[in-house]
C-alpha cells in the first residue's frame, strides 16, 4: 500500500506541536499552581494552602465585581443574542442583493474596529448622555457589552441558519402553518442549539472584556477583569491567582457546555 501524505509524519511535527502546547499552557499551569501557595509571593513556593481562595471569597470587592460581571454578562448576552438572531434571520432568509455584504460587515463591525477606538468613542458619547440625563447606572456597560457581543452571538446562529434546509420551512407553509407558526414550530427549534451557542459565547466574551469596560465604567462599577487589573497595579498576591483559577474553571465549564450543545442534535 502506498504511503499517503500525513502531516503527523513530517520531521519536527512532534517537537513543534509539543512546543506550542507548552507555550500555551505552561504559564496557565504555573498560575494555577501558585494559587495554592501558602506564601505571599507569586514566584516563591511556600507550601500548599487554600487561604487565597478563602481570602478572595471573603473579599467583598471581589464578590461585588464578580456579581457585576455576571449581571452585565447575562443581560448583555440575552440582548445581543436576540439582536443577533434577528440579524441572522434577516441576512439569511433573503435572496442576495447588492449591499448585503456591506450589512454583514456592519453587523460584524466590533470584530474589525480596534476595541480601544470603540472604548474612546463610547466614553465620549456616554459622557454626553450622562450630562444630559444624569443617569450613571450599569446601563452604559450593559449597552456597550451588548453591542460588542452581537457579532459573537451572530456567527454561530448564522452558521446554523445557513445549514438549515429551507425546504423545511416551505414544507411547514405547505402544511398550513402561517409564517409565525412556521418560525415557532420549525425554524426556532432547529435554530435553538445555534442560539444557545451564541448566548454562551456572548456571555464569555462579555465576562472577559477589559478595554471597553475600562473606558465606559463609572466609579465603583468594576467588573472582575477590571478589578483584577486594578489590583495588579498595586502589587500582586496569590489572591489574583486564585481568582484567575476560578475564572478559568468557569470559562472552561461554559465552553465545554457550548461544545456539547452545538454537537447535540447535529
Amino acid at each position, binding site marked *: 500500500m502506498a504511503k499517503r501524505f500525513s502531516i503527523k509524519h513530517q520531521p519536527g511535527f512532534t517537537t513543534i506541536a509539543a512546543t506550542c502546547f507548552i507555550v500555551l499552557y505552561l504559564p496557565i499551569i504555573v498560575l494555577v499552581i501558585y494559587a495554592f501557595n501558602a506564601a505571599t509571593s507569586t514566584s516563591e513556593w511556600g507550601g500548599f494552602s487554600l487561604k487565597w481562595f478563602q481570602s478572595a471569597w471573603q473579599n467583598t470587592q471581589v464578590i461585588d465585581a464578580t456579581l457585576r460581571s455576571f449581571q452585565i454578562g447575562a443581560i448583555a448576552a440575552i440582548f445581543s443574542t436576540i439582536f443577533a438572531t434577528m440579524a441572522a434571520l434577516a441576512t439569511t432568509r433573503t435572496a442576495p442583493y447588492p449591499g448585503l455584504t456591506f450589512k454583514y460587515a456592519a453587523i460584524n463591525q466590533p470584530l474589525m474596529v480596534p476595541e480601544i477606538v470603540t472604548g474612546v468613542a463610547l466614553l465620549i458619547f456616554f459622557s454626553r448622555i450622562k450630562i444630559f440625563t444624569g443617569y450613571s447606572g450599569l446601563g452604559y456597560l450593559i449597552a456597550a457589552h451588548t453591542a460588542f457581543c452581537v457579532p459573537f452571538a451572530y456567527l454561530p446562529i448564522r452558521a446554523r441558519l445557513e445549514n438549515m*434546509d429551507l*425546504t*423545511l420551512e416551505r414544507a411547514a*407553509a*405547505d*402544511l398550513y*402553518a402561517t409564517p409565525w407558526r412556521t418560525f415557532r414550530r420549525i425554524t426556532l*427549534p*432547529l435554530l435553538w442549539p445555534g442560539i444557545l451557542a451564541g448566548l454562551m459565547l456572548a456571555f464569555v466574551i462579555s465576562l472577559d472584556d477589559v478595554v471597553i469596560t475600562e473606558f465606559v465604567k463609572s466609579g465603583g462599577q468594576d467588573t472582575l477583569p477590571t478589578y483584577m487589573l486594578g489590583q495588579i497595579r498595586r502589587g500582586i498576591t496569590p489572591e489574583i491567582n486564585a481568582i484567575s483559577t476560578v475564572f478559568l474553571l468557569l470559562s472552561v465549564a461554559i465552553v465545554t457546555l457550548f461544545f456539547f450543545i452545538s454537537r447535540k442534535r447535529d
Partner: protein
Amino acid sequence: MPDKPDRNAIEVVNVSKIFGSGEGQVAALDTVSVSIRENEFFTLLGPSGCGKTTLLRLIAGFDFPTAGEILLYGQDIAPLPPFKRPVNTVFQSYALFPHMTVADNIGFGLEMLGKPKAEIKARVTEMLKLVQMEALASRRTSQISGGQQQRVALARALAPQPKVLLLDEPLSALDYKLRKEMQIELKRLQHETGITFIFVTHDQEEALTMSDRIAVMSSGKILQVGSPRDIYDRPSERFVADFIGESNFLKADVVGVSGGRATVRLSSGAEIPASLPEGLVPKGKVTIVVRPEHAQLSAASPGASLLGTVENIVYLGTDTHFHLRLADGEHFIVRRQNSRGAGDGIVQGGKVGILIGGDAAQVLKD
C-alpha cells in the same frame, strides 16, 4: 373515477413565469395552459429546466406567476400564500421535520388546521396504516431509512386530505428496486385516496407506467398532453417522440389528407397511411415517426414500404434490434420480439424490406 370524469381539479390558464429582468430575463414558463381532471394521476414530464418544477411550485404557492391564472375548482389561487391553499406537496428531499417524531410529522398539517387532538390522532393512525408504518410512529425521522422517509412524507402530505397532491420527483433519491415498489405503491395510494395527483418527473418510464395522463414539457411550454399510449403511439412533435422511447424519423411528402389521416409518399416512392396530430392539416414536406417495434421486416422485398441493408443485429434476449441503412442513407431501427423457431434469413449485410403498417406512422408538427 369514471362517474365524473370531466370535472377539472386544476386549470392553469395562460400562465407565464419570468425570472430575472432586462437582458437576463428567462421565461421558465411561457403562456402555459393545461387542465387537470379530478382524481387523475397527472404527470408533468420533461428534461431538467423545462419548467415542470416551476409549474408545480406555482400550484403549491412557493412562487407566484408573472401572468395568468391558476384555478382550483374554479377559484383563482395564484395570489394565495401556500398555507392558504388546500394543496399539499411531497418534496424531492422529503423535508421531514428532524426534531419531530414520525407521528408528529404526519399530524403537523392537521394540527396547523386546528383540528381536535382526538381527530388528529385517529387520522395519524389511519395514515400510518395506509403507508404501513405503524411500528415506527414514535421514531425520529433521522432513525428511519430513505424508503420509510418517503412513506412518511407521503402520509404527511395526504393526512390533511388535500384537494390536490403535488409530488416533486419523489422517487429520484431511491434505488432502482425501491423505486419500482414505490411506483406501484403510489398508484395504490392514489386509487385508495381518490386524491388528484400531480407528479413531476424526468423519467419517461416512470411517467408511462404510473400516469393517467402525461404533459410533455420543453423550454417552458407544454408540447403535448395525453394518455401514456397517446403520447407514445401518437407523438405530435419530434421532441416528444425523441424524449419518450426510441423513434425512426423519415422525410415524406403529403399526397392526400382525409378524415384525420394523411397519405404520405416516402423517399422510396411507396405511399403509406399516417395519422395526424389533432388540428394539423399538413401540406408538402413533413417528417413522420415510426416506432421501432411498429415496423416489420421481410427478407423478400415485394410490398415493402422501404428497402434497407442490415448493418447490425443486436440480440437482447426478449427482443432483437435490427440496425438498417436505407437507400437514401438514413438510419432505421426495427425491434422484433424474439420467439423460438427457425431463422428467417435476415443476416448482417443482407437486403431487407421494411413494412410500415396501416397504423404505424405518425405525421409530426415540426
